[in-house]
């Protein structure tokens, strides 16, 4: 107990800030992922609890599980009614989900009692927001392109883009594996 209290007293503001951001982004992502027909106090409480767990244990598999659960909720929530989905809502969810993932990555790297240079946080979040912003633009282009061809629920385009991205991902993984084998 004494050790726990001592550890609590050693926590620095920067780590609290980063873990706070993990909580906020994860909670927003989970709230956006809750299907409208399930929206209520209980799902919100569960989302808050899951976000808290993510913030407290950013270096564990819990983060992957929570973010994957958010994705599952999103897929289930918009199943069959993709036409009602607005582009802003979609881009916001994607960006917030990525920021939750990025914040958890940073929180996992920083010890809870570390003295953190402000430059670290500034550079990290500038990059994260730049990626999120750039991706939002790409996403909007994709949505507009899909709308022009066959609407936002264009199945063929999604399948093609998904396959292309999956092929790219496999290429990246193979490259990584080859590097590791060479070493």
């Amino acid at each position, binding site marked *: 107990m004494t050790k726990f209290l001592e550890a609590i007293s*050693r926590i*620095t503001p920067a780590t609290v800030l980063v873990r706070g951001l993990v909580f906020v982004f994860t909670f927003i992502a989970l709230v956006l992922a809750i299907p409208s027909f399930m929206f209520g106090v209980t799902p919100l409480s569960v989302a808050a609890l899951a976000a808290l767990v993510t913030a407290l244990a950013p270096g*564990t598999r819990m*983060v*992957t599980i929570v*973010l*994957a659960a958010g*994705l599952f909720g*999103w*897929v289930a929530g*918009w199943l069959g009614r*993709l036409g009602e*989905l607005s582009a802003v809502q*979609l*881009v916001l969810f*994607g*960006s917030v*989900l*990525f920021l939750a*993932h*990025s914040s*958890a*990555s*940073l929180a*996992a*790297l*920083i*010890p809870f*009692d*570390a*003295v953190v*240079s402000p430059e*670290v946080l500034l*550079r*990290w979040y500038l990059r*994260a927001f730049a*990626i999120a912003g750039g*991706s939002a633009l*790409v*996403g909007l282009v*994709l*949505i507009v392109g*899909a709308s022009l061809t066959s609407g*936002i*629920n*264009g*199945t063929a385009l*999604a*399948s093609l*883009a*998904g*396959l292309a*991205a*999956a092929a790219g*991902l496999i290429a*990246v*993984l193979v490259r*990584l594996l080859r*590097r*590791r084998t060479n070493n």
Partner: protein
Amino acid sequence: MPGGDPPPEETSHDWHPTKALGRALVLVGLLLVGAVLFGRIDLVVIAVPFVASVAWGLSRRPRTVPGLRLATLEEYAAEGAELTTTLTAANRDVVAYDLVVARTQHSAWLTLRSTNGDKQPDRPVVAALNRGEAADVVLKGPARRWGRHSIGPAAAVAAAGGGLLACRAVVTGSLGFKVFPVTEPFAAVEAMPRAAGLVGQHRSRRAGEGGELAGVRQFGPGDRLRRIDWRTTLRTRQLHVARTLSDRDAEVVLLLDVLTEAGRSGGIAGEASVVDTTVRASAAIAEHYLTLGDRVSLIEYGANDRRLRPASGRRQFMMVLEWLLDVYPHQVVRVAGGSRLSAAISPNALVVVMTPLLDARSADMIAGLARAGRFVVTVDTLPAGIGTQTANAWTPAAFGIWRLERANTIGQLREHGVPVVSWQGAGSLDLVLRDVARMAGRAQGAGVHR
């Protein structure tokens, strides 16, 4: 003083993927599989930032681990003196590090605090390092207790590629510090019981060449002309010479009882334990007698039969301080070299025993030295306010009995002619040295009469 500075290594296997990379790939995989299976463009849009971050991160793969160096200005210091250590982390790679987490550990008796940022002690420091950039963390603070202390090892871990890659820990070696005990002010003006050598600063009880006037007597064959006291010669109209006492040096043996430790050590500004008092008092007494030109030797009464041979001068003082750094209390069944202790000590030496008198063997040893005709002075190193934790109703009574038994032992030692004094710093031994010198004079007188 250089610290550990590992050479740069051009190996990419020093870097490994983090959980963040695994998570990003899992999420992208799930999203893309979902997009293909359900034909949903929204999942592709959601996957875009993850794909972009992975692509950006892996395109900037680092190759070299960060350089880490621990350096200090001082190799030794006195208790309470400030020490300065610099921990330098450098990026020798071609890409920037998102962050480097560096930390070092150090002896608990060194209160080192970071001089940059918030002055928090003993915390990891996180900094972002561009290509070719280095960051210094200056740790500064006092050494609170004598002994051999260390700073380090220091360790650093870097992350790059948006936190997707992390390097193995880079670890430096440790830096050793010698922190010498502060010599508490000590001055003994009384004569040594038996000065032994032919040179020194103590006035002896024998007439001879020296500076201390002992009287005036008639001129005799062999007297030097420069010794003639002209005032008395003119008054008495007979040649008279000034009689002086010879100046002699002496041997001082400091016997350190390290069989037991008691009390709590609070560093230079706090309470002193038995070993603290033993070491600081020994350093003070040694400094005092070495300054006077005497020979000082040290003997450890404990598990290790450690001895420092008698010598004089500044060099011996440094040897004494170095020797004292390795004084550790050891509870042992058999004391090494205990039986031949008196044989190893010169009969003319002044033996100052630093002991808490907590072990019956210590009292036996002191009594044995006194019986063997050594001039023994005992310095009681037990802290004044020592108490005990009350375990049950009988504890205070048992503690009282133990106190009485110890007082009885001290009384018995005094009856054997061994003075026992508590260490009080300056002038601690003056009173007892006078008694010992008087006893030595009586013993010499008795010898002459026989």
